[in-house]
């Protein structure tokens, strides 16, 4: 039930929407009345109450409820004394001391209660290090791939030959330099397409996949419109797609885009990170045969996962819809790729021999690590869904949670984070309908870390199995 109110409270305050409490209905828990009407009613009453009060931003409350951030900005700011704006209340004509901020500010404060972000913060505060901090929190909650960076390091040492500034200091087209678009199209054709080729003129470059998705939301939907999204899904979408755009996300399990005449955004960020028996099929391959669908398909790609370069902020919008391309090209002025990075990446991607070699080796290493990790979990009696790609596995710990619901799941998550000191992502953060599932990334690990992880999980597993 917390899930529904979390979804509802994240919606912008411009209007109220009736959000079907899917979880309550499907699980049949608490009955439709208790499960959905009461929280809904409470929520609506709360909205009326807040609107009437027109309260100023209730800062003290929000500040204490925020999780500690890695570099606590508040404490370092003591040298700049807080304004004595309360005293100016007596002087000003009826207005409140603090200037107003937008409703977006408050909505983001709440989303930081999500286990996804809390876990990331805990790791930042106390990160595991084999040698220097062996009791730190082990990061299995961030889809970061460290397995094959050595190959990229070698390439940089041996091949990178660029003079940083020649021709790139000046204003560049915001949607990316042509050379990079060409190189990116080449990469996508190799990695994503196989049977289709990608056209550089249909590429818009953005500073990461995060703004790519947001731009598409701005272009395809008005505030209050909705996107259907298969659940479980990446927790970051709740922020990236909804925050400034005002669109809603509705988790579903069906596809009927053509029938309903709606768009499809296909986020193919992990296309080259496949390692299983099943082949990856891009949306580009599906629509190649059907011209009528071309206008509604938009692909998001980037280098953060497949090439392990999340810091460089290189993302792609690939669309077959000329209008969407036009708008995206204009919008990406707010999120362009830095020129020296474009230069470096173009060079790297144009080295097609290197890229081919890299993706092959990367796949092998992903597979090896996956196998090791899954094997280790198996020993603990934890099974995972059969996976053929990505940097993580989807683990079934439902046998370990008590009660069998979201609260039980979060209790286990908490134990794992604070007792075992392992950061994994609970399925509820991903809007998974069934409780007990967890996403575990294994690509930040070394082979020698795996036994450490398994051992830590074992301790918690043992306490779960013993009679409480």
């Amino acid at each position, binding site marked *: 039930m917390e899930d529904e109110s979390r979804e509802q409270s994240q919606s912008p305050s411009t209007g109220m929407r009736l959000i079907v409490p899917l979880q309550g209905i499907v699980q049949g828990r608490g009955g439709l009345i208790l499960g959905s009407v009461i929280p809904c009613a409470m929520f609506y009453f709360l909205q009326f109450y807040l609107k009437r009060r027109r309260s100023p931003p209730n800062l003290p409350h929000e500040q204490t409820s925020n999780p500690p951030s890695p570099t606590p900005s508040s404490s370092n700011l003591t040298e700049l004394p807080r304004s004595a704006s309360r005293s100016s209340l007596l002087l000003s004509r009826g*207005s409140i001391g603090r200037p107003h901020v937008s409703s977006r500010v408050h909505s983001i404060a709440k989303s930081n209660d999500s286990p996804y972000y809390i876990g990331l913060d805990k790791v930042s505060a106390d990160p595991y290090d084999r040698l220097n901090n062996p009791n730190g929190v082990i990061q299995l909650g961030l889809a*970061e791939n460290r397995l094959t960076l050595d190959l990229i390091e070698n390439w940089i040492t041996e091949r990178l030959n660029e003079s940083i500034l020649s021709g790139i200091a000046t204003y560049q087209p915001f949607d990316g330099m042509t050379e990079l678009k060409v190189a990116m199209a080449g990469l996508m054709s190799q990695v994503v397409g196989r049977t289709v080729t990608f056209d550089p003129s249909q590429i818009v470059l953005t500073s990461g996949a995060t703004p790519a998705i947001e731009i598409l939301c701005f272009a395809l939907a008005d505030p209050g419109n909705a996107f259907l999204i298969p659940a479980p899904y990446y927790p970051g979408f709740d922020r990236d797609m909804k925050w400034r755009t005002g669109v809603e996300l509705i988790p579903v399990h069906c596809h009927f885009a053509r029938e309903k005449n709606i768009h499809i955004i296909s986020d193919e960020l992990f296309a080259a990170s496949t390692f299983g028996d099943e082949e990856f099929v891009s949306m580009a391959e599906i629509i190649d045969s059907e011209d009528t669908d071309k206008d509604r398909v938009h692909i998001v790609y980037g280098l953060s996962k497949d090439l392990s370069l999340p810091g460089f902020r290189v993302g792609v919008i690939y669309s077959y819809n000329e209008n969407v391309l036009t708008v995206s090209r204009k919008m990406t002025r707010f999120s362009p790729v830095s020129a020296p990075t474009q230069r470096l990446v173009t060079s790297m991607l144009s080295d097609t021999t290197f890229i081919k070699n890299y993706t092959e080796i990367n796949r092998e290493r992903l597979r090896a690590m996956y196998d090791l990790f899954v094997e280790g979990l198996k020993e603990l009696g934890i099974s995972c869904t059969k996976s053929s790609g990505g940097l993580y596995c989807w683990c079934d710990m439902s046998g370990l949670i008590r009660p069998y619901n979201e609260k039980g799941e979060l209790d286990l998550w908490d134990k794992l984070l604070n007792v075992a000191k392992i950061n994994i992502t609970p399925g509820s953060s991903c809007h998974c309908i069934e409780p007990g599932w967890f996403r575990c990334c294994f690509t930040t690990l070394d082979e020698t870390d795996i036994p450490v992880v398994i051992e830590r999980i074992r301790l918690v597993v043992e306490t779960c199995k013993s009679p409480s």
Partner: protein
Amino acid sequence: MAIEIVQPSVGLSKIAVSETHGENSPYFAGWKAYDENPYHEKHNPSGVIQMGLAENQVSFDLLEEYLESNQEATSWGKNVSGFRENALFQDYHGLLAFRKAMASFMEQVRGGKAKFNPERIVLTAGATAANELLTFILANPGDALLVPTPYYPGFDRDLRWRTGVQIVPIHCESSNNFQITPEALESAYDHARSMNMKVRGVLITNPSNPLGATIQRKVLEQILDFVTRKNIHLVSDEIYSGSVFHSDEFVSIAEILESRNYKDSERCHIVYSLSKDLGLPGFRVGTVYSYNDQVVTTARRMSSFTLISSQTQFLLASMLSNKEFTEKYIKINRERLRKRYEMIVDGLKKAGIECLKGNAGLFCWMNLSPYLNEATREGELEIWKKMMEEVKLNISPGSSCRCSGAGWFRVCFANMSEETLEVALRRLHEFMDRRRNGQKTHDLSALAQVQSFSLGDICRLFGERSKDLKSDLISSLSDSR
């Protein structure tokens, strides 16, 4: 009865189809003309000279020189141990070393007259993103920001497009050199209120684009008092702060806040970037500096949509924290810009054109109002078109900047070589000469028809002009008959 069901094409959002991206204004049309026929000293000497792009190329050699002699510091070098961590670094706090370097650079640009705390620096991929981000944070859709005119044409898009926020102009007039007055502030505020808009803040650009002039201390104090009285925000876009010709002529809002002991500073936010002062627009480096903790926290999270490449942060961190280099750069850059400014203003003066007295920026604010056929936007656009088509210069008309009076133009001078600037000035000179001759002819013939003066009388009235003029006059009179 078979009815053909035509599948409606799949729709786009209102934002996508709106005109708020603003790219239909003459400001952008001029760019197209340039793109189609760009000037090149050798290959296209009669092409369009781009004077509509505020880009700083005068001090590029200093940057090149630095990077050449400091390769180890600015690249990962042969020892790539730093590369891995850098490639993985996507923390929206940004590289601490880089934030410190930015804070230090901002202090240096202000001659140490203000202090900046690296913890208050939020990084964005350019000032464009910084301004949009602040707007998202400070205002809701439908709310208003007050912006003094004339202003950077890009604001119409950057502040309004995706945010849904409105811009209400604070009208500034040429009669007092376009300075912002308390009356103008109040008037803009009242106007917004009369349209039922909530005013969320004032956004100033200091030094001003397109005026090329700094805002006086007294005026800054008045603006700060105004926003405090109204309990609204103040955004100070100080992107040209390092491009002031004499360092003592720029006062940052940071200095005013410091002098007031940071009282009421929670409403103040500064935008900065390396695109103008450092001439690195391609790198996409911008920042929001806020005195408001909540804004800093929120801006930081929102910067996820517009992070600066970690490679770029790393590359620039060492350069910007090299105080010897930055001090030298800032000083030399100022001098070169000043010289350019003097060159263009003198050149324009010789052509009979006056400019607003400027002291900063990469452009001058040129006054062609005496030469308009009519003192309207149409008259201004007419002369702007002539500039583009006849003189082959792309300059920005004041109407694109929402200027109240017609006839003002922003002319950029730092994005070209001195030689090219000379060519541009020469062309303008010739154009003005032709126009003066043509104008005199026009005046004379109209006068002759209305007043029935003798030809001899008229020539005596206009005095010194040669017999060329006489023959022009004769031919024009015969034409008009």
